[in-house]
């Protein structure tokens, strides 16, 4: 898994590439998010369009990133969920927890 970071207006977009799974350094997202919060960046958008695989541990990773951001008064939203990831979130009732978008401009405007 690799993470690219960019700023769109006042939102930090994290482009996640590859797999979010237990073997694949799944704590990386959480750590990146924590660093952003410490730097005062509280509007975070995870672009998951290039994520090839997510397991239950990856779902947990997204959840803990979400709670960390929320607890610090920030907002973490999701962009470009794949069909499979959407299904994994849906059956664990997390689809309604996360705010998610398919259009980046719309996502950025929502903060």
């Amino acid at each position, binding site marked *: 898994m690799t993470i690219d970071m960019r700023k769109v207006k006042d939102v930090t977009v994290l482009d996640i590439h590859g797999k979010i799974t237990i073997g694949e350094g799944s704590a990386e997202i959480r750590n990146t998010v924590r660093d952003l919060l410490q730097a005062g960046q509280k509007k975070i958008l995870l672009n998951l369009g290039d994520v090839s695989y997510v397991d*239950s541990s990856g*779902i*947990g990773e997204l959840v803990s990133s979400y709670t960390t951001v929320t607890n610090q008064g920030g907002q973490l939203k999701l962009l470009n969920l794949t069909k499979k990831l959407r299904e994994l979130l849906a059956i664990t009732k997390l689809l309604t927890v996360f705010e998610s978008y398919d259009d980046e401009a719309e996502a950025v405007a929502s903060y």
Partner: protein
Amino acid sequence: MIWGTREARKINGAVSKTDFELLFGSRLEYLDLVQNVSENIGRMLGLDDDSQYWMSLSVRESVTNAILHGNKQDGDKKVNVLFSFLEDRLVIRVQDEGNGFEQESLPDPLDPENLLKPSGRGIFYVRSFMDDVSYRALPEGGWEVRMEKRLNHQQQGDSDDH
């Protein structure tokens, strides 16, 4: 591939007969490989792409648990994955050398108080995606998760000609 569900029907035997088996040390590095084998077995048996995906994700989750919780990542302890190709279903058993768990005491990940927990969803996914899931302590020691995936014979022929 010439071999599809038609052949899968012929492969057979008693419920407990194992047709294809993997045995490996408890290392997370093997998860991709195990998932890939599962996908290929699904394809060989004529499962459609989505079913292949969710079945192999279920195997991956079960093997993750066997490595992490059962064998506690002790590389000398083995995980055994046994595939049985029955006429109407694929049976997969994942065995580790641990003591297992009590099914009743597993927290429900959909319970509002667990919804935002960072873990505890693996078994739930397996139960969602597979047609039958059961657990048992092995008589010789160790723990087994047994999963079934029904084969969809309507799709016979789809995968016969390439």
